[in-house]
């Protein structure tokens, strides 16, 4: 399987240490415990009254996306899609909604957010991203599945840009995945041509490893590794083992 060349024109991550952007890591303020306490003005310069009503998965995804997109000078819109990895889905919001049902007053606001795909709604609406979307909310290697889909769409010109977003929620008592260590959200804006403001070149090779050997893989760790490499402009080849899927990511910065 041949590799696909992609261009990164924006990225951001919310992690336990702070907010990661091309400008550096901004640590959390003393009253913030971590990504869940993110404030609107830390990720988006303009006022946005709806920010406060975002539930945990929506807030993490929107914040990472907003932080990545508000720093890029790219025009995003009709031909920009979203590929998302969200292994815990909307479960934390589902529980809030169920509570409202049991209390006798079902909340329409909670219900409208009780789908893994609700998480892309606020991003798409605010930034007017009207391209194709795909949401992987479980299964094997959802982060790499989302990246593979983004790369394929860009290569086949089904989209000109794709915002890749990954969200891991650790605060609920329902997390049994290896990524349960910390709440985290990452967003990377990918395009199929190098545009002004391009930060790095990513070569992504999806190759299929047909095996029933079960290899655990911490996608949060791997993709935070990608973010750290991007921040330090470190050339790197990151390979990914996994059941039924193997790929690698290679990062280069010549001329950017």
């Amino acid at each position: 399987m041949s590799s696909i060349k992609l261009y990164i024109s924006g990225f951001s991550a919310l992690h336990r240490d702070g907010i990661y952007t091309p400008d550096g890591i901004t640590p959390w303020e003393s009253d913030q415990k971590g990504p869940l306490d993110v404030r609107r003005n830390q990720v988006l310069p303009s006022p946005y009254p709806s920010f406060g009503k975002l539930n945990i998965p929506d807030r993490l995804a929107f914040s990472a996306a907003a932080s990545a997109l508000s720093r890029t000078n790219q025009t995003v819109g009709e031909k920009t899609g979203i590929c998302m990895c969200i292994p815990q889905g909307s479960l934390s919001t589902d529980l809030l909604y169920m509570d409202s049902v049991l209390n006798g007053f079902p909340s329409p606001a909670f219900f409208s957010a009780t789908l893994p795909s609700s998480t892309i709604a606020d991003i798409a609406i605010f930034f007017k991203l009207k391209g194709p979307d795909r949401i992987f909310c479980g299964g094997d290697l959802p982060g790499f599945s989302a990246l593979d889909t983004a790369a394929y769409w860009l290569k086949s010109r089904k989209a000109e840009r794709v915002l890749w977003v990954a969200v891991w929620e650790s605060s609920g008592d329902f997390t049994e995945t290896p990524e349960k260590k910390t709440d985290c959200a990452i967003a990377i804006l990918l395009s199929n041509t190098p545009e002004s403001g391009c930060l790095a070149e990513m070569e992504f090779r999806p190759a299929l490893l047909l095996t029933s050997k079960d290899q655990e893989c911490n996608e949060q760790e791997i993709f935070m590794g990608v973010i750290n490499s991007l921040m330090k402009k470190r050339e790197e080849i990151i390979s990914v083992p996994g059941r039924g899927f193997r790929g690698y990511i290679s990062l280069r910065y010549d001329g950017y």
Partner: protein
Amino acid sequence: MEKLMNELGGKIISALKLSDVKPEDIDADAPLIGAGLGLDSIDTLELLVMLEKDYGVTVPDVNAGRKVFSSLRALAEYVQENRQKE
């Protein structure tokens, strides 16, 4: 009426979890839906739940709803006329 308007302003902000908005920011005579607060149809439905839960007030139909949400003052007047809980 002023007191009820302030109270309702606070309830709108907490029920809808609006950020960057304080009760004194809400213009008493400006429309609640659309521009300004950026409320949409789901917010309207959520406010209807809040009105029933906290004031025992229901809104019979869409037309009544348009009047009720036409401003904070109109909302307070409607609640004052129809409330069943203290």
